[in-house]
């Protein structure tokens, strides 16, 4: 599969994502520059983490107007796969490509630490191959990761199976204490109604290299690869 990782000015998890996809998952990866209008025939687009445009104004608010986003949106509209992590998720929300919004963490501080998340069902590309009962240890690193959606949207995404992951404790219990940023219903990641656009705050690419003594994030990459190739 050919992955395209978009590089916005201020992206800083782009090379981490490329490293995991290329060196650990052994996939073809190209860098897509934000000023371009060409997705270079990629099968799967990734919006990486970072601080696109310094996250000035509001996280992801400027990046969504980057030239390449026009093509990314068209690609997604035609059913193409798009995956946004952290700042990438924020950009997807700002672009309206996934439902909801990401607010400041309730403590109003940047938080970087390992958290646990649990897949909500096996009905999507990214969660299908993930052990459904296991609490995955995946790091977060954000100041604005407090997921919010209004009651109606919540009802819809819950009913449609659009909630990908929820924050939980190390035993898989979804509790208020295990919610690191105040996200509504402990939501850590969602997808669009068509289930081809995915966004999540935790960084699976930071938990995929055995050198870092935690490879829980690899389940997500393995899942999407096996689903697409099969």
């Amino acid at each position, binding site marked *: 599969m050919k992955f395209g990782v978009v590089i916005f*000015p201020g992206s800083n998890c782009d090379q*981490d994502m490329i*490293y*995991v996809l290329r060196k650990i998952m052994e996939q073809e990866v190209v860098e897509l520059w934000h000023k371009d209008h060409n997705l270079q025939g990629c099968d799967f687009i990734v919006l990486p983490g970072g601080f696109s445009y310094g996250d000035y104004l509001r996280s992801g608010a400027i990046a969504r107007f980057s030239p390449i986003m026009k093509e990314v949106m068209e690609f997604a509209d035609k059913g193409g796969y798009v995956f946004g992590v952290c700042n990438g998720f924020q950009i997807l929300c700002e672009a309206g490509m996934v439902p909801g919004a990401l607010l400041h963490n309730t403590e109003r501080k940047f*938080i*970087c630490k390992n958290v646990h998340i649990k897949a909500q069902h096996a009905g999507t590309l990214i969660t299908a191959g993930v052990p459904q009962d296991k609490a995955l240890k995946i790091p977060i690193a954000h100041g604005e990761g407090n997921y919010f959606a209004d009651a109606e949207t919540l009802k819809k995404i819950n009913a449609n199976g659009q909630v990908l992951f929820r924050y939980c404790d190390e035993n898989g219990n979804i509790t208020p204490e295990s919610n690191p940023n105040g996200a509504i219903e402990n939501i850590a990641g969602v997808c669009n109604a068509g289930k081809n656009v995915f966004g999540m705050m935790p960084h699976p690419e930071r938990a995929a290299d055995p050198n870092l003594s935690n490879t829980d994030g690899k389940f997500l990459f393995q899942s999407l690869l096996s689903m697409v190739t099969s």
Partner: protein
Amino acid sequence: MSDLVKGEATTVETAEKLGLRPEEFRKITEILGRTPNFTELSIYSVMWSEHCSYKNSISWLKTLPKDGPHMLAKAGEENAGLVDIGDGLACAFKIESHNHPSALEPYQGAATGVGGINRDVFTMGARPVAQLNSLRFGDLKLDRTKWLVRGVVKGIGDYGNAFGIPTVGGEVFFDECYNVNPLVNAMSVGLVRVGETVSATSEGVGNPVFIVGSSTGKDGIHGAAFASKDITEESAKDLPAVQVGDPFQEKLLLEATIEVIKTGAVVGMQDMGAAGITCSTSEMSAKGKHGMNVWLDKVPTRQAGMKDWEILLSESQERMLVVVHKGREQEVMRVFEKWDLNCVQIAEVTAGDRLKYYMGNDLVADVPAESLVLGGGAPVYKREFTEPAYFAESKKFDINKVSVPADLKAVAKHLAAHPNIASKRWVYNQYDSMVGTVNMSTNAPSDAAIVNIKDTSKALALKVDCNSRYVNADPETGCAIAVSECARNIVCSGGEPSAVTNCLNFGNPYNPEVYWQFVGAIKGMSKACLKFSTPVTGGNVSFYNQTSSGDKTEPVFPTPTIGMLGLLKDKSTRMTLDFKNEGDSIFLIGKSRNDIASSEYLYSWHKIKNTPAPYFDLDEEYAIQNTIKQLIRQKLVQSVHDCSDGGLFITLLESAMPRQLGFSISCTKDIRRDAFLFGEAQGRIAVSVKKSDEEKFTAFLLDSKTPFERLGEVKGKGILVDGEDFGAVSEYKNVYDTSLELILQ
């Protein structure tokens, strides 16, 4: 264009207002052969400030060991030291202070400190891979201290996180001596392929010189001179001397810099830190032995109507000066255009050694580059020093006059909760420690931070350390301990100490007692760095860290922060500090001592403050570290953790907490129990050993004549000392993890 320098002649009074001394004013007049105008005087005032010229420290800094087998750039040669680490890679690393700005505006002060040190590394062509910091604040009960801590931590976080380099280690220490003047020391470590570095030099007559990055504003004017003054109540008036940082611009500048070096069109490059355009043009010209014509009116500015000296002295962040091979300008401009950054030619390299600054057609300053810089015409002073009275007084300390507390469990709880010992997670959770996917310590803690070098078998082992209480007690011994502890932490993590950068934070150098501390620290550092074969590759000196109010002046503790680079040639041999298995034996390598001097226990429990440095023997320390290396190599130990602040008890507790494994130990009979548990004698390391390895392990130690004792074993979930129940590990962990955040939240 006129060749006559514009502007009126200045007076010695103006010179003094700019922080120059009368004899320095006379020297400038001699160099120029005339009285300088205001712009020229401003140039000398910043270049000859302590911050840029090192005039009161350089004669002693030169005595530090500089040579090592792997040095590619020695101290003072480039913006940061450069060490060959094999596989065609070199490591650039440096630590720098941003104390004075942080005292006034903690958020921007700390943020721009992070920005500045990273620029020092990537201006050489090295991509930063890890950051560390060393922070010191006053009494945490004070609201001002809390304000400073919150601001500094947020400043470091917001800048470093957006810049996108992980913060992998650091230290935070609280003492009332830092109430007014906190210390903020930031370190950056970068990697570059050998031969792909860029030098901070300017040569080749006719070569164009570009300013790249942010526009120039009025922030930070006279910042270098400001950093060379005592902090007083008047200091708030200096607020415009604090710069404002923009990490987004810095990130773009990093990418553009690395990319532009690859074009091969760059002759030399230097970042703009202290003294902005003045410093970069003069240092690069002096190094390349050329002159430069600079047109200040071409500099992109943030506001109209900036004066020539404002443009020259501005310390606006995220800017660089780039000398380019003539004819290859387009290649350079294309790169900066790609990254949406300014790239404007403002100067041209000339023959000779004159720096001529123009504003339009007016020549506003004309000075010889060499006369401005360290190693050239900048003044060098030898300062007087005298031993302070407290030093002799401290030697009178007698442990026998301190009674052993009846309830040692209460002491243990007190220490685990003490802000100097408790977890700093409130601080480091605000830093992105994992971006870059190289931090090998996140899920496997060790004494030094381990940073993966991708696609090689190697990893870096990094540490910053300085117990300033020890240095205050005895500068020479205290500073040797700081070096030794860095080395010990690297060795305990499976690494080999390689080189040192230092950040020397002291009081006013014109105070002979402060200077005595400085000289002592340098001597101690030299001795220890020679022993561990870790040359000093650079760093910075920050004097004037003290508080003046009324006629009373109190210097901060002398704080020579050591940043050490270590190397793990084979990352599979890295070692961690956590107990692994129930039933493993616990040993102490090194000797227990009847010593509680300068310990956190003595200081905060008994409130006895003026005591000698703890027990320390450099040869013994070195031998013990060598033993540890062997034990790790032979895979005879399960965990390794050194004894430092809080003593053996805290060491064992820190090994117990990650996996919540308890321990049971017995105290040595002929040592006071408080000294055994909480004393901070150096040269001691706690290890855990599998039962099946115990025979081989003890045989090795007996063979190598290393002192050791068996303390007990990893057992249960609780802590037993001589059979007495000291409580559950989980109980301590809760206190240890949360005590700092309870104060700061």
